[in-house]
């Protein structure tokens, strides 16, 4: 990986991790100070089955939506690494590894699409 790409990846991951931990901490503290019980949180979580539902909750700063958003940001980080690496292979014109990275990306996306069924 070229040094420039490495720096870009490092900075992006640092920002994403900070955002993820910040959202998780904020959500957990809100749960604590608002007196939201585990049962209430489970019930709220059951309603958050789509990105739009999480986004709507996030706008209202609902504790469970904050936690879901924090986890979503964290979960995206390995995918970001994969995309950065694919671009790096692309810049190097290493088509075999561009294809392999795309295959890995499709497999990972497939695991999330299983959710729809």
């Amino acid at each position, binding site marked *: 990986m070229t040094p420039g790409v*490495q720096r870009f990846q490092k900075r992006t991951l640092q920002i994403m991790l900070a955002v993820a931990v910040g959202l998780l901490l904020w959500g957990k503290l809100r749960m604590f100070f608002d007196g939201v019980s585990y049962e209430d949180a489970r019930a709220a979580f059951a309603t958050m089955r789509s990105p739009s539902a999480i986004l709507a909750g996030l706008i209202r700063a609902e504790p469970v939506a904050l*936690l879901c958003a924090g*986890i979503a940001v964290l979960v995206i*980080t390995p995918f970001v690494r994969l995309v950065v690496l694919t671009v790096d292979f692309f810049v190097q014109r290493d088509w075999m590894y561009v294809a392999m990275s795309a295959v*890995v990306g499709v497999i990972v996306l497939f695991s999330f699409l299983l959710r729809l069924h």
Partner: protein
Amino acid sequence: MLIETNPVAFMLIALVGSAAAGCLGALVGLGGGILVTPMLVLLCGIDMHIAMGSSLLAVIATSSGAAAGRSRDSLSNYRVGMFLEIAATVGAICGALMAALVDPAWLQLFFGCLLILTAILTWRQREDAVTRTLPVNRLAKKLHLDSSYETRSGPVRYHIQRPAGGFGVMLGAGMVSGLLGIGSGVLKVLAMDSLMRMPFRVSTTTSNFMIGLTALASVGVYTAQGFVDPMVAAPVLVGIVPGAMLGARLVTVLHVRALRTIFLVALIAIAVQMLIKGGKGIVPS
């Protein structure tokens, strides 16, 4: 469950325990995720499947955290990582689908066995072997897997051996990862180091990149099965990220060899606890 009866105690245990797991894991070269499941199951009474879901998220956090904390990465062999990840991610999806069908008590038994295996493999961990004298493998050459890494005495070139064998082992490692909700970094390092004859440090850094992607493939299935609980995972993730970063810094200061011995003894003690708990679940007294 402690999270229902005493949420404050749960939060403190999960936060401090995960920070310690992340720190210790980084010090001895493990992801730290492997300690999260026993902590949640044994100390907090969390369901095994939910604990495994949280552990997978912890694996992603430590993998990305290590990449974010590393100043320069001249060791990772991303071509090997990408080639092997095709098998590992497929294995992870299969393992994660199987996890839903297996009784939690059996999962605890498998997990206990895996902890003992991890302790043995970590104990046997060796330093870099010189691999440049090894012959060129035809498939590895076709796939451009051979590479080099920088040392104080200049670059060291290495030739990858048995890439097809490594691909097969990675399918199994991915399956274990999905089945037990771990990164299975130890198995990955073992395959790359012993089978493919990659230098040890190259294997560990490449494995660190791989575990995040493998865990991500499993998380998709775990989420669909309802095994990801944000309320349980949140304090674990808040604790493990700074813990892993602290461990990565302390590794240059502390006497790691003595610490590793203590850690491995603790790992076996945890394994025994898991085996007892799993055994009780299968054969109720």
